């Protein structure tokens, strides 16, 4: 009985299974690992925001990232391209696997044989959230990849504190937004 109860609870916690989450996470970690092995740089995603501003602004706050700004643009283009590879294979149905889960959220758009995916989260939430993310990740020295993946992987105390802070606050805000009836 305990086993089936456990299975029930598990299904409740993970209604879409765990395989695609775990496999995707391994790929995310592998991407960071490949760059680290070649360069000794633990690459995070949010410094790109400031380093790219150094092309347009002479503020020293952005110019300090001048030496890394080119590769950070390349890293970001790689992320966009990698997600596009996913879209052009699994998302469009040209490649399939039992480990893959089709999307159950948002809406699909067929364009020239490809299946694109579009969010239904309101633009104002994306923009306002984006502004807060731009301020918070740069002030807080990292985001879900810099603190969450690289920092936790390095057993960094500052990153554990950063992750605990943004995770708990985000849970509170997301629950509040849902309770207020802001629908997706």
């Amino acid at each position, binding site marked *: 009985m305990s086993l089936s109860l456990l299975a029930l609870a598990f299904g409740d916690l993970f*209604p879409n299974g765990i395989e*695609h*989450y775990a496999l*995707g*996470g391994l*790929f*995310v*970690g592998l*991407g960071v*690992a490949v*760059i680290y092995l*070649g*360069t000794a*740089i*633990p690459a*995070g995603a*949010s410094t790109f*925001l400031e380093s790219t501003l150094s092309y347009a602004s002479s*503020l020293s706050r952005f110019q300090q*990232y001048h*030496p890394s*700004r080119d590769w950070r643009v390349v*890293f*970001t283009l*790689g*992320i966009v391209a*990698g*997600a*596009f*590879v*996913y*879209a052009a294979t*699994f998302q469009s149905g040209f490649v399939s696997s039992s480990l893959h889960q089709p999307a159950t959220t948002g809406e699909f758009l067929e*364009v020239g044989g490809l299946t694109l995916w579009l*969010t239904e989260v309101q633009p104002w939430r994306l*923009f*306002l959230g*984006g*502004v807060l*993310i*731009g301020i*918070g*990740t740069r*002030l*807080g020295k*990292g*985001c*879900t990849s810099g603190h*969450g*993946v690289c*920092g936790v*992987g390095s057993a960094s*105390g500052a990153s554990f*504190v950063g992750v605990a*802070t*943004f*995770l708990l606050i985000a849970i509170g*805000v997301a*629950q509040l937004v*849902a309770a207020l009836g802001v629908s997706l």
Partner: protein
Amino acid sequence: MSAEHEQHPLFLPLVFVGGLIFGFGLGFSHMAQPEVVLNFLQFDDFGLLFVMFGAAAVTGITFFGIKQFRSTAPLTGAVYGRRLKTLDKNVVVGGGIFGVGWGLSGICPGAAYASLGVGNITILYGIAGMFVGAYLQGYWRSTSAESDAPAAAAD
């Protein structure tokens, strides 16, 4: 200031390949969908934990394991070492502000770039917002006569 990639012709290609794998993983794990992240934050689907900690496990093994075999990286000559960020008030205040934005929107920087790749052009509102926010904090911190130590190379 010299660019970090001047040393080796394979530097930028390797960074691109790393980004490619990273972005594919975010697409495959549905982290490019803000709805899935919001479902996690609202306790409807805890799968995100497998993504974040699965990735952290791979990087952790890599970061600590490579030091058993080599001391410097082939493409940069840089030493494999822990570049720990200092824990100060900014980590908590910034993390809190980031948390509000993450909880409101379901997006974060890496997942937002990946979201563009899966076709979600609506995410450009979010990415534009991130640049506005990054600029605002840089402007405020440049103008307020802050005596903080120079910011660590954060990610």
